[in-house]
């Protein structure tokens, strides 16, 4: 461990947890003058089994749905105490705590204009309670509540475009990131922290347990998601989508099948070429919209 590590060893995340790596990267950029309000989910459970904690910064456990509200309270309280200067206030939450149940608190925080950086660790399902589908779960992924079988081929419906919905609130800064692009991720966290007002970063966070892939592949899968165009790296200041900046364009896009092949949650798709073609078409259209 490096001597200045703010997220220390001994946490109970599964071997290879992409979210744990993502948290380390965020805190390396945020530094010690940071307060985190953390929604219930894997991250909270794995880091704070009483009486232990893996955090070396002030950290507050929020409920599943209200990380943004708790962070709002911290922001206002520090102002009232005259201690707001030089402190980063962050909200951490999973995709369930952001796209679904925490959405109202998040939208309210954005609208009130708090000086908060909200980071969603997107592992594309409710992992902490046993891999239930979420509005963040991609089409056809098999989860325990969207099991691929004779009736349905995995999750029905699309992945909610959370970062676009957040940016539509016309906030200071919105970005997407992965752990396979650490420089890009850290630059985006820095920009988010330096923005006046609300900022939001969605970090793609591979989960070996929920996605069913070997634990050594979390970084490789993040890279594959970007190289296929399934996950696009972008940033935006304000709410005008004409100003979106793609921060990394794959030189040649890989077929989406290469990404599916590595994960048990998509195994059933390999026998359904028409479904793979459907996703490929949607990804092609999305990338065309982004201009690549």
């Amino acid at each position: 461990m490096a001597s200045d590590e703010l997220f220390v060893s001994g946490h109970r995340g599964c071997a290879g947890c992409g979210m744990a790596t993502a948290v380390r990267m965020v805190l390396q950029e945020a530094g010690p003058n940071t307060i985190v309000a953390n929604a219930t989910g894997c991250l909270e459970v794995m880091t704070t089994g009483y009486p232990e904690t893996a955090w070396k910064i002030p950290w507050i456990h929020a409920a599943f749905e209200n990380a943004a509200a708790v962070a709002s309270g911290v922001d206002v309280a520090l102002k009232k105490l005259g201690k707001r200067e030089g402190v980063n206030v962050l909200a951490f939450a999973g995709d369930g705590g952001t796209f679904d149940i925490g959405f109202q608190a998040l939208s309210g925080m954005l609208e009130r204009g708090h000086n908060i950086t909200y980071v969603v660790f997107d592992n594309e399902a409710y992992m902490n309670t046993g891999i239930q589908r979420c509005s963040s779960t991609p089409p056809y992924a098999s989860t325990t509540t969207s099991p691929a079988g004779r009736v349905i081929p995995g999750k029905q419906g699309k992945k909610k475009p959370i970062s676009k919905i957040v940016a539509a609130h016309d906030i200071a800064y919105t970005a997407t990131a992965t752990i396979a692009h650490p420089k890009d991720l850290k630059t985006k966290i820095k920009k988010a922290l330096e923005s006046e007002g609300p900022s939001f970063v969605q970090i793609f966070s591979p989960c070996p347990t929920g996605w069913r892939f070997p634990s050594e592949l979390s970084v490789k899968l993040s890279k594959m998601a970007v190289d296929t165009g399934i996950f696009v790296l972008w940033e935006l200041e304000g709410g005008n989508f004409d100003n979106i900046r793609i921060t990394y364009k794959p030189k040649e896009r890989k077929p989406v099948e290469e990404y599916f092949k590595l994960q048990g949650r998509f195994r059933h798709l390999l026998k359904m070429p028409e479904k793979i073609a459907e996703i490929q078409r949607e990804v092609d259209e999305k990338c065309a919209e982004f201009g690549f």
Partner: protein
Amino acid sequence: MDKITLGAVNTEPGSSLNYKTGSWRTMKPVLTPENCIFCNMCWEFCPDSAIEPADPKSKKPIRIDYDYCKGCGICVEECLANKNANLPNALEMVPEEK
């Protein structure tokens, strides 16, 4: 902390270090120190903060902290020496001895 504190407030930052996750390992990464090229990719990507980073200036290789390494294998997968076909591997995955 013997008693449950008011509001379950935890006053020992970083106390998860008391819990050694190294016992979870079934496979283990092993370093050949002279092959390390100090890129620190293993340190960058480790989910368990279990790598002490290399120092390129003093040519000090990384060190793996087996008290906490869970044996996920990300370091072996991402090691730049391993990825370079012209260089000998710095990290290798081997079965944990019982």
